[in-house]
């Protein structure tokens, strides 16, 4: 033990017997003892504890309290904002998706009050959040559009793009066929860099990328809206697919015919539809476990 702390150890009673014996040999040991006793008889000064406590507690803590609270919750607030930004980002990026299943049609309004009616087995998606800058929908299937007047409106399909400024038109994008019919205003069809403008009562289709030319259409709106299936030089496969979607049934076609079909089929009478197919293609229909089989 160092000499310069020995008395401190003694005062706090930390010396061992040996060290204590050694200390007792000091000439001033008795003085030290008496100092210790005098120290221990000293009284802690009077302290007006209650008075000061009352004074302290009477102080308002409002002003300073708000600042620490703000600081303490700063990180929480930052985290919340980040999460909200994240959610906002996801919503911005994520498109709204609408779908009409087989056997049904589905009407919806776009953010600018444009109307869309989806035909059976069709899907449409668009971005609600960027709609004002970007009036654009992606279509898979068939839909009838009644577009509100405004900026450019685009319908994008895997087969081509249709652009309009406020009009009524029908777009059908099925398998290998893109079909557009204009009912009001004008429509621009963009396909492989080629642009065709349609006027009211005009239509066109691309089948396997082969252009039909501008066709004359008599209807003022698509037949499927009135529960009619209208076909313009479509393959048997395409007609059957349309019937399947519309009636939500399964048809197995064992015939192999390249004869195209034009005409109207009823949308509410499957028996008649099958009859028409049997007569036109010289087929025999058989029903088996909810599946209609067409045989030559």
């Amino acid at each position, binding site marked *: 033990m160092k000499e310069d702390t020995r008395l*401190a150890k003694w005062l706090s009673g930390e010396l061992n017997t040996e060290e204590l014996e050694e200390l007792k040999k000091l000439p001033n040991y*008795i*003085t030290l*003892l008496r100092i210790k006793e005098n120290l221990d008889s*000293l*009284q*802690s*000064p009077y302290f007006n504890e209650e008075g000061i*406590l009352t004074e302290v507690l009477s102080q308002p803590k409002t*002003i300073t309290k708000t600042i620490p609270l703000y600081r303490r919750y700063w990180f929480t607030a930052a985290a919340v904002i980040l999460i909200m930004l994240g959610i906002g980002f996801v919503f911005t990026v994520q498109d709204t998706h609408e779908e009409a299943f087989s056997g049904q049609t589905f009407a919806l309004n776009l953010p600018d009050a444009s109307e869309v009616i989806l035909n059976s087995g069709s899907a449409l998606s668009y971005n609600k959040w960027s709609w004002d800058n970007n009036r654009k929908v992606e279509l898979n299937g068939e839909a009838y559009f009644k577009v509100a007047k405004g900026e450019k409106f685009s319908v994008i399909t895997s087969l081509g793009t249709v652009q309009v400024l406020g009009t009524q038109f029908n777009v059908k994008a099925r398998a290998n066929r893109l079909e557009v019919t204009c009912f009001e205003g004008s429509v621009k069809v963009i396909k492989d860099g080629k642009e065709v403008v349609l006027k009211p009562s005009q239509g066109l289709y691309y089948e396997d990328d082969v252009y039909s030319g501008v066709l004359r259409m008599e209807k003022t709106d698509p037949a499927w809206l009135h529960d009619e299936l209208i076909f313009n030089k479509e393959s048997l496969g395409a007609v059957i697919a349309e019937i399947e979607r519309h009636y939500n049934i399964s048809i197995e076609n064992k015939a192999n015919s390249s004869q195209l079909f034009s005409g109207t089929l009823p949308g509410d009478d499957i028996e008649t539809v099958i009859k028409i197919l049997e007569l036109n293609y010289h087929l025999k229909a058989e029903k088996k476990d909810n599946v209609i089989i067409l045989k030559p």
Partner: protein
Amino acid sequence: MKEPEKQGICDKIFFTGFFKTHARSLRNFLYYKFGDEDLADDITQEAFIKLWQNCADVRHPKSFIYTVAKNSALNHTANKKVIMTYTKNNPAKETDYQSPDYIMEEEEFRKKFEKALSELTEAQRTALLLHRVEGKKYREIAEMLEISVKAVEKRIHGALVSLSEKIENFR
């Protein structure tokens, strides 16, 4: 340093408990330092008011009050003598010392002791009285003064050497 009283220091009951545990030590620490009771009271009160007002923001209340008090104390210098009173009237009355040379009359010894005590350095006096009168352990004093335990022990040792030398030389 984990301080349980940190939780709910804004709560009045909790604060009161904390005050009763620490106010006296702080106040007497300041008194031993300055020898001025009013000043010690003022600084103590000010430190606790700041704690009360900033309760939500204070993580270590004990360190906080000592830091605030020490900052306030920087503006003051010790200019008065520390005057101590005795609990017992005759501290060494029943002690039977072996060597008659060192037996003094109690009153005489006490006067010398008081004089010697008042002549200690501020650092020595503060450490000694915190230990002996306030019952603080050297470790606690070290925390209060923000020095090492070793430094506290040196101060106490120095105080005792000084006291005994002075008392013997006053003779």
